[in-house]
């Protein structure tokens, strides 16, 4: 055996365990879900009945549009806010910056259920926010809990710290010299961001967007507890279809649909990464 083929074998042997794990925990379940989703709910025959139901039933269609809406809006808002926060933390100076830098990731250590209940007690009809505003003569606050607004709020709470952390690390690697020389050459703040900061942290931004998007798309706890009864996000609707109606095949079809949405996002992510690799 030549030494190069020996090394090749070793390489393969090292890859096999991770490939097997991927096969067992990702690939097989996905294929199984696809197969399940094609089985008709009532008979044993194969067909597209579950998918047809998914796209024709008005309630289900409303759920899907609602989910995509919530996900896109939350992702966009998270990205804008975390970018601003990360830039502030990177270039700002002083006491406030130091403390924000220490505290912003605290929400990541709060479990989802607890955070959700905190949102309920804070923004509920008779919650803290309402009580604090009462002395100012404001008697009714807009409905936040059991509404679209509450859901977006919860998504921001869960995702901003993570996105800020990712972006901060990317911004930290931008040398001060770049920023200073650009400033000296007369670049405005907007130009500085568009020409230097964004291109230098572009890759990390895509990582953040991908993770935020997938996380929100598949979220369950917060939408279950503070979401509206109808329309529901797909995660909650899927749980209902699966365990309350016991229609496992329809639930599988929903899972496959969600997976397709996420892989669409994944495609952009991988494309950016590949382009980047080619460029370097």
């Amino acid at each position, binding site marked *: 055996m030549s030494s190069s083929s020996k090394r090749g074998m070793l390489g393969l042997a090292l890859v096999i365990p991770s490939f097997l794990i991927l096969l067992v925990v990702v690939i097989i379940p996905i294929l199984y879900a696809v197969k399940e989703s094609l089985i008709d709910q009532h008979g044993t025959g194969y067909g597209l009945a579950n998918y047809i139901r998914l796209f024709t039933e008005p309630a289900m269609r409303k759920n899907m549009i609602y989910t995509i809406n919530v996900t896109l809006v939350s992702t966009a808002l998270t990205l804008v806010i975390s970018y601003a926060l990360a830039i502030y933390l990177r270039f700002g100076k002083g006491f406030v910056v130091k403390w924000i830098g220490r505290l912003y990731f605290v929400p990541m250590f709060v479990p989802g259920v607890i955070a959700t209940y905190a949102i309920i007690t804070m923004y509920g009809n*008779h919650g803290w926010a309402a009580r604090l505003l009462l002395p100012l003569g404001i008697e009714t606050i807009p409905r936040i809990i059991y509404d679209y607004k509450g859901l977006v709020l919860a998504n921001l709470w869960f995702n901003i710290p993570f996105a800020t952390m990712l972006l901060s690390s990317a911004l930290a690697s931008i040398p001060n010299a770049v920023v200073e020389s650009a400033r000296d050459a007369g670049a405005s703040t907007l130009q500085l961001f568009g020409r230097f900061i964004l291109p230098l942290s572009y890759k990390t931004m895509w990582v953040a967007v991908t993770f935020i998007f997938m996380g929100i798309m598949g979220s369950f706890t917060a939408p279950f*507890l503070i979401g509206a*009864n109808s329309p529901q996000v797909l995660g909650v609707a899927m749980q209902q279809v699966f365990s309350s109606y016991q229609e496992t095949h329809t639930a599988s079809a929903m899972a496959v649909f969600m997976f397709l949405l996420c892989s669409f996002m994944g495609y952009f992510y991988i494309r950016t990464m590949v382009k980047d690799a080619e460029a370097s």
Partner: protein
Amino acid sequence: MFGKKKMGLILAGVLSLSLLAGCGNGGNAATATGEAKDTKAGAATGTTEISLYTGGSLNVKELWETLIKDFEAKNDHVKVKLVYLPAGTGGASTLDRLIAAKKSGQTDTDIDLYEGSLDDITKGVGEKLWETVDTTKVPNLANVDETYLKQVNNQAIPYRASSVVLAYNSAKVATPPKTADELYTWIRQHPGKFAYNDPSTGGSGSSFVNTVIYNFLPPEAMNSDDPANMKKWDQGFSLLKELGPSMYQKGVYPKKNQGTLDILASGEVDMVPAWSDMALEQLAKGLLPDTVKLTQIDPAFTGGPSYLMVPSLSSKKEATQEFLNYVLTPEAQTVVINKMYGYPGIKWSLMPSELQEKFNSVSSGYRSFNSGELQQEIYKRWQSEVAGG
């Protein structure tokens, strides 16, 4: 060289195998004698160990721990081993194990007593899984209301129960509704002050929905899974839709049984349907303000017992019957009430009078509801017509 090495390996292998075998024999012999001793000791004192499989919430576990301790203090020849499987983890698999054992022709199983729901009984009946219980074996069965035993053909013992009742804030509601119609009128007159939870997430909300629908149907329909009944649901659903805008926040249905109790506690609503045991427990622990009172309306909300079943494969039925007999005594039932805030499995009239008084507001009973797979159809229709309407 190589040949010698191989020989050596083989020799070593043979040696170690024989050694292992020797050890194995020795071990077996030791356990065999050990077992023999155990049985002898068991026979001398007459101790039989039975195992009780139970699921549910933590309070169920605590209840059984107390009952078993009391029972064993009075009985030296029956020991009860508690196998607790928390809700949602293994309850179903216990039943699957029993069915599998029966199907594969086993004659013995280590599950001597199983706590379960009406659903579990029905699943086992086809397989002849459950032993029939009667007063010749368990004398205290005479304490149990016969109608509840007949419902399950004497295949299980309804040892405790709870039902859905109306929980209301007495500081805001002076005279609570007494009938279902009065309740609907009250909801219309007090918009935003009533809430029931999303029926697919908890029993109190689904009881409200079921009773609204089935109050328009003949009583026997409540325990029938005839799909023909689905056509008679329209009146109930249109009432639910009509009540929607008068509900909490013009039609918000919180999730889970706890969801409505939370907004009752915070004063956002004045009246909710709630499980009697849950509400009573939270009243006792101060989680609900003491202005909250409970009442039952007429016709009543639905409710139901928890059952104990004796698997027919169990080989220790006599010991099990002794334990069952204890569970159905008034003293054991007092523990049930104090620990679980549930209804006793035996007749109220046999219970201590101070307990009868304490539970007066909710002890007027309940109706059982079991429509099999139709329940899922109700959830589906509710989701699309009432929540999404």
